């Protein structure tokens, strides 16, 4: 499903964020990408969704070479991902329903389909009763669950999360962990960049550990 082969990324200015990284992730796997700040976790996720392009090697997702996509093809490739951000990246001028409906509207779902799926996703993360609330009125944990609802509403094959529990209390973090586990159990491939040890022991995933831009084989589980 995802394969990195000899991927390097050097930013303009000379910073080598990733150096000769190779791994594959099969469909349905639950994988954590761990490492210290600056180890290259964020770069790895950015390469997956074509925010950045590799300077060496190839990133293959669903058989597509992500680094070689034309700008026109990028949006359609991104729709196979569900993205969860540490800072949620919600749209604060729209209500909960509209935030979750956005990926469906982007993909051109019919209005009736959209309503059904949005409610299902909100129900799944326990926010159905907040349908018409504005995101700013929700707690941090609720906002993160809203972000997850938006990420999974279009039933993506891959869930990508960048520090999903980074700003949350332990209780909230557990809820998020459970949500991730439940999606993984129904076949969604999940790639989580985190250094949250609690989440790690909660989900006992496969771990890809990065150290200074390279695979840290010594620490791999």
């Amino acid at each position, binding site marked *: 499903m995802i394969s990195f082969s000899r991927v390097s990324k050097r930013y303009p200015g000379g910073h080598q964020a990733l150096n000769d990284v190779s791994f594959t992730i099969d469909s349905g796997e639950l994988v954590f990408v761990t490492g210290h700040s600056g180890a290259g976790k964020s770069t790895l996720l950015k390469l997956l969704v074509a925010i950045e392009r590799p300077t060496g090697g190839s990133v293959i997702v669903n058989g597509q070479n992500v680094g070689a996509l034309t700008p026109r093809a990028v*949006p359609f*490739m991104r729709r196979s991902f569900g*993205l969860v951000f540490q800072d949620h990246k919600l*749209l604060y*001028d729209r209500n909960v329903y509209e935030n979750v409906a956005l990926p469906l509207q*982007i993909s*051109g779902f019919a209005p009736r389909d959209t309503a059904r799926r949005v409610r299902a996703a909100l129900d799944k993360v326990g926010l159905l009763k907040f349908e018409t609330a504005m995101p700013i009125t929700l707690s941090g944990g609720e906002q993160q669950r809203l972000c997850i609802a*938006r990420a999974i509403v279009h039933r993506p094959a891959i869930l990508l999360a960048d520090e999903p529990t980074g700003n949350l209390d332990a209780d909230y973090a557990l809820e998020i962990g459970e949500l991730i586990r439940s999606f993984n159990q129904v076949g969604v491939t999940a790639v989580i960049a985190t250094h949250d040890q609690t989440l790690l022991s909660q989900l006992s995933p496969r771990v890809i550990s990065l150290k200074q831009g390279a695979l840290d084989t010594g620490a791999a589980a």
Partner: protein
Amino acid sequence: MKAWLAAHGRSINAAVTRLAGAPLGSTLNALVIGIALSLPIGLHLVVSNLQAASQHLTSAPQISVYMALDANRSEVAQIETKLKQTPRVANFRFVPREQALADLKNSSGLADVIDGLPQNPLPDAFVIDADDGSPAALEALRDEIGQWPRIAHVQLDAMWARRLDAGLRLGRLAAVGIALLLAVALVAVTFNTIRLQVLTRRDEIEVIKLIGATDAFIRRPFLYFGALQGFAGAIVCWLILAAAVYLANRSLGELSHVYASLFQLGFLSPLDSFALLAVPTALGWLGAWLSVSRHLSAIAQ
């Protein structure tokens, strides 16, 4: 199809919300566009009206030859023969003084005054079409006929109509020129408005891009916004012109009542009105398109 309609509906809705969300700014923009547009289109309206009014005045120049008031029938017949023998006179028409008086009575609304005259003040006249319509040839012919006996006055008609026509053509050209300049200004105004919007919505655009929106999807609400702003400006312009024509016609009504003739300004035809509304809408759309395209590429992700 339903999803497509829904997507456009949402974009229009978003654009209307943004317009209504900043009522002062939107109103000012619409006023700026509307007032600016009303200048060239108002000029066009005036020119069109004058042109329509001057059209029934003959625009082929003619020469009017007035006999002396006391010229008798045989003297008039002599002139008629001379005109027939002059090759530069293509054809001519004799207007007897009695007929001229009757015409004046019918057309001017001064019947009472004319009836009160002790005698007919009008002379016999010939109206001549020259075979060469150039001003120099006409003036030469006028001077020649002026030398003939018993001719009181020779006048070049319709030269003023020609001059008016040339003036109107200049006016029309000016209207087109101003319209083109203001079209550019409209595009620029929209460009700037949309630029500010894109910059303030940068975060939102980045998020939408990340979750798989195409550029077309991101562009759409901005395009509708630009088009709506142009349309609002066009409506303002239309209202300004309608009010101006209404007020002008009211005072023209009083004026022409006094002169017993009815001259009224015509308003824009339905087709012109449609163009007035459609063109600024399209220009607003264009300005928005240029702006969003340019600024989207700056938000590269």
